[in-house]
């Protein structure tokens, strides 16, 4: 196992499109790092550069203490799991897993041992003689992981491996991947656009957008302390509400047409009179008991029923606002709803840069 260290890595495609704009990232030995971002944010390109499937335009990529910029994928000592599994359709499961080892002239008994062991670990022992097409999606995914495991690589690279599975299987495989990681303690880099996958799997989440890193942190960090407006809205479902406001005193922000909100003045550094963007998660707001509200209120427009809870869509002043309430709450009254937000759950962002105004 080894760490993966990226220094100012860039990718410019022929034609001038800059897919990755100078990324520096340290993936510590044995960690599970998830690259998360919307499609086209460069996360897959970054992974493919680490794998050696894309050339690196600028910067350096180190696996262990070796710079691998010019090293062939096979010699980088990594293994990759692809979204569409990329199993060789004409080979049996056993041969699929053994192919890489045979190419490296691993002795036969050793291949046999490793394949059997990986198959046992992944519970695919019964399918070793089958062709991939005779397997279900989840089983194929396991074979793809088995092919990676038998190589005993320095790092595992996962390129959206769960996207082709149905929702139920995805949850199951997610748990299995996590379990496998706990067992193997292998350095893993996992690319996904699914925030739930990222939150549940990662030791470290790297949120990317437009070829840049927006935030690196533990799952709880990116959720509780988003560094930018982008991270704030990308992580969490339904997305965080963003409403324009103006700071009118220490720890107080006015939402035009709606009321005022308290925020924690020790956490955010912002001068009076500044126009800011206020972020509040739908699940952090509650319908206020009398006297609890500072006048922050919303005009409801319609309700989305989700089962355990319901989403109330409406307006705070002129800004759209979504509120999540338990399904047990029936009476929302008519007219405006007064809302309560605990002050430490209010996020404040710079209007122009979109960066958080959080201290330190």
């Amino acid at each position, binding site marked *: 196992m080894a760490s993966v260290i990226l220094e100012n890595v860039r990718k410019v495609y022929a034609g001038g499109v800059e897919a990755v704009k100078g990324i520096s990232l340290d993936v510590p030995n044995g960690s599970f790092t998830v690259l998360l971002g919307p499609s086209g944010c460069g996360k897959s390109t970054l992974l493919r550069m680490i794998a050696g*499937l894309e050339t690196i335009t600028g910067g350096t990529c180190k696996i262990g203490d070796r710079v691998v910029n010019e090293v*062939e994928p096979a010699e980088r000592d*990594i293994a990759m799991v692809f979204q569409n599994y*990329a199993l*060789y*359709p*004409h080979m049996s499961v056993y041969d699929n897993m053994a192919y*890489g080892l045979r190419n490296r002239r691993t002795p036969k008994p050793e291949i046999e041992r490793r394949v059997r062991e990986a198959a046992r670990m992944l519970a695919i022992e019964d399918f070793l003689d089958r062709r991939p097409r005779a397997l279900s999606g989840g089983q194929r995914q396991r074979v793809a992981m088995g*092919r990676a495991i038998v190589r005993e690589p320095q790092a595992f690279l996962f390129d959206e491996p769960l996207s082709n599975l149905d929702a139920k299987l995805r949850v199951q495989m997610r748990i299995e991947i996590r379990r496998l990681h706990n067992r193997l303690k292998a350095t893993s880099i996992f690319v996904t656009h699914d925030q739930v996958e990222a939150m549940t799997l990662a030791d470290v989440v790297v949120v990317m957008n437009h070829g840049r890193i927006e935030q690196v942190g533990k799952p709880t960090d990116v959720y509780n302390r988003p560094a930018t407006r982008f991270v704030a809205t990308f992580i969490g479902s339904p997305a965080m509400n963003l409403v324009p406001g103006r700071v009118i005193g220490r720890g107080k922000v006015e939402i035009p047409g709606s009321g005022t909100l308290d925020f924690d003045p020790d956490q955010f550094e912002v001068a009076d009179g500044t126009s800011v963007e206020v972020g509040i998660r739908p699940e952090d707001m509650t319908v206020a008991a009398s006297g609890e509200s500072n006048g922050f209120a919303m005009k409801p427009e319609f309700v989305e029923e989700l089962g355990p809870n319901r989403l109330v869509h409406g307006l705070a002043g002129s800004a759209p606002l979504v509120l999540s309430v338990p399904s047990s709450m029936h009476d929302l009254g008519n007219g405006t709803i007064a809302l309560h937000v605990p002050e430490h759950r209010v996020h404040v962002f710079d209007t122009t840069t979109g960066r958080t105004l959080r201290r330190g």
Partner: protein
Amino acid sequence: MVERRSLATLLAHVVLILGIVVVAFPIWVTFVASTHHAKDIMTAPIPLWPGTQFFENYRRLLFEGLINPTAGGVPMWRMMTNSFIMAMIIALGKIFVSFIAAFAIVYFRFPFRMVVFWIIFMTLMLPVEVRIVPTFKVVADLGMLNSYAGLTIPLIASATATFLFRQFFLTVPDELAEAARIDGAGPVKFMKDILLPLSRTNLAALFVIMFTFGWNQYLWPLLMTTDRQYLTVVMGIQRMINVADTDPQWPMVMAAVILAMLPPVAVVLLMQRWFIKGLVETEK
């Protein structure tokens, strides 16, 4: 599924049976004619049932050949061997060359890749007949007249097969090539271990088409060979008919036609099993 109705089924069968009769009847007549004496089939009515000369006619044709000035006693087995060698070299050569060419075009980024592809593609529009005079000149200058090499090499380059393989390679997911790269398979290994097995249906289909193409070559062997040793079946039949001052020996000609049909039919039947196997086994 179309609804099954007895009238529609009946009609479909009538049409199909008529079709089979139209196709099969001439072949039957050919076969019948090959089993009679020459004089029997020149007198009306033409016999519709096999005669007594089956073994005699075929034996003479296969091992002695026709004695006439042009066909000159070349036995049929000799012609069939020539045709078979020519068809095999053309079919296998075409498949080999176009497989490699398509592999290069699809999987390697070299300068003027698309230019090369379009040049190959454009030659689709230039069949042998169009370039026959310059090709003949080249082959003659290289001293390849009256040889298997001269018979086959000019026909081997194939834009059609290259194009087909290219289209097939484009449907192979890129991830497969990438997975192979990570698994430490170089280009040649990837081609041998992965692309070739995946292409076997295409290989079988192309082999059938190209073998038939090679077997049926007429104009090129006619120009290329003057030596009777290189006489092919199709040329042989033409020479059997083309006799001066006497009637062609029709039973022999018919027997030659029947024999000429057999190898392509055999290839189709043999390869058909591969086809279906390949079709059933393909992914998804």
